[in-house]
């Protein structure tokens, strides 16, 4: 009897320890929470909220999200403190690269296809704008190579002899790439490599210049609400350079191993880019909060997300809307 009891406790404790590994119960059925990274840029906010509704209503998961900047969130993902990082721009952050190499995080699916990054200038700099009475100050500016002629146009007030190139915020991987590009295009002595400290600072700089009709040269990426709001032209790069970005859903290793039924859903998740841009614009223009917009989106476009989920889950989500 005693030995039986001892055996039972051992079995139970082993079972508890290994309960993570038991596949039969599934992540959500065993009552574990799915924690999302509460990311702070719009497309990721919408994607996160859409996924939250789908997992919550469709698969009966307890969902939660933790706020933080992307680096802390990627770090939390690698230690399984959170499970899903809805919009991971693969290769853009050292933390992710290291964690992925070590197998602590896994990127799956392609939630957004068609993202692109590059060096942008407002369209009125090249073509002028009759409505706003802005002259075309750089009609021949087409590619990054042409920038050498226009350093006076993008003058840096802090170093008047040079132009200013607004790089990526300090510490992002794109910052290093852009710094390399400044060198390889021979623009290093003509432009200051200006690093805004944070994303919002870069946004504010671009928006402010745009509203005043002043020239600005900045790194940026799309899809973003800012790109929906301002009309910017992407400067051409050397032939053969591909600047499209691979976006995946970031998962912690534990979640990837133990929740295959949910991973299967996440692998199929995709928001068509035009639809996404439309909705991002609604977010900034009509000021609809992301959780609300997510529900509206799910209601308006069942054809998009019905493809991701099982018929049963689709019914449940539909019923909840």
């Amino acid at each position: 009897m005693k030995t039986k009891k001892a055996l039972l406790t051992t079995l139970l404790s082993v079972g508890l320890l290994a309960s993570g590994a038991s596949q039969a119960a599934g992540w959500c059925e065993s009552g574990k929470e799915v924690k999302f990274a509460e990311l702070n840029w719009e497309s990721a906010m919408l994607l996160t909220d859409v996924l939250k509704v789908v997992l919550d209503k469709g698969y009966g998961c307890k969902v939660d999200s933790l706020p933080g900047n992307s680096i802390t969130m990627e770090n939390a993902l690698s230690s399984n403190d959170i499970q899903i990082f809805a919009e991971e721009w693969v290769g853009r952050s050292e933390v992710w690269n290291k964690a992925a190499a070590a197998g602590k995080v896994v990127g799956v699916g392609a939630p957004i296809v068609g993202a692109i990054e590059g060096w942008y200038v407002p369209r009125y700099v090249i073509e002028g704008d009759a409505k706003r009475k802005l002259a075309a100050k750089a009609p021949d500016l087409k590619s990054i190579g042409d920038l050498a002629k226009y350093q006076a146009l993008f003058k840096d007030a802090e170093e008047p002899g040079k132009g200013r190139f607004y790089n990526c915020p300090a510490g992002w991987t794109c910052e290093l790439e852009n710094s390399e590009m400044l060198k390889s295009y021979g623009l290093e002595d003509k432009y200051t490599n200006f690093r805004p400290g944070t994303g919002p600072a870069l946004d504010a700089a671009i928006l402010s210049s745009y509203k005043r009709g002043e020239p600005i040269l900045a790194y940026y990426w799309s899809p973003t609400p800012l790109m929906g709001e301002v009309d910017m032209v992407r400067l051409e790069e050397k032939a053969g350079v591909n600047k499209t970005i691979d976006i995946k859903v970031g998962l912690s290793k534990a979640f990837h191993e133990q929740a295959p039924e949910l991973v299967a859903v996440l692998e199929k998740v995709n928001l068509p880019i035009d639809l996404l841009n439309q909705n991002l614009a609604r977010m900034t223009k009509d000021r609809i909060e992301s959780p609300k917009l997510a529900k509206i989106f799910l209601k308006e476009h069942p054809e998009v997300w019905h493809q991701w989920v099982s018929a049963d889950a689709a019914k449940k989500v539909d019923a909840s809307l």
Partner: protein
Amino acid sequence: MFPESFTFSIANWVNGWVDSLVTNYGDVFRQISDTLLWAIVNLEGLLRMAPWWLMLAIVGGIAWHATRKVTSTVAIVGLLFLVGAVGLWDKLMQTLALMMVATIISVLIGIPLGILSARSNRLRSILMPLLDIMQTMPSFVYLIPVLMLFGLGKVPAIFATVIYAAPPLIRLTDLGIRQVDGEVMEAINAFGANRWQQLFGVQLPLALPSIMAGINQTTMMALSMVVIASMIGARGLGEDVLIGIQTLNVGRGLEAGLAIVILAVVIDRITQAYGRPRHEASK
């Protein structure tokens, strides 16, 4: 739940107001910004051009003049040397320039406001809540509109620093003058001193320890804003801290963080020594 019928939002109104300010008056603000920038760029250029040993000698000289102690002077110079030794000298100078300009502006605004508020209870009752706002409002809330008006870089950084760092100086100047003994003031009045003589002959000298404590606090708070400043594109030690944080490079962040601490200690020791009455320092 708070009843929905009572809720309202000023967000749209504020957004519209900032928008129109940027669109209509953006260029005017840029001109103000350029003037301020000229001063900072020149000061920074001067500090960065000066050879390191000269800077150390100057700081050593000031430290000796303030403290009159060999050990303190050597320690101060040694600590600064250490910052240079880990390769952060140039960034240290950039931070120092930013901080000096911010402190000078804080002093120019803070001391007169403090004096006025000591004289008028009405002004004080308006000023104090304002100072509370300045010290507690999360800086990014006002930084983004400031960014849009003044451009990215050093100027908004200085604005943010002044907003955050000037309040203690205003408070302590006010306090120092109010604490001047009433009987002393009566005696001065009996001698027929006018307001200026009262202020410069008696009140300010007696309030000096308190004012110096205020300047000390201002510089300390200015230094604590260095990282925030780097978030809006100001160069210097804060940039290294920021990169350290954003790439999880703890070591690099710590190095730059310690350099900020050292700069703070050096300035703290020097300003505190000046705040102490002379005879005490020579003891």
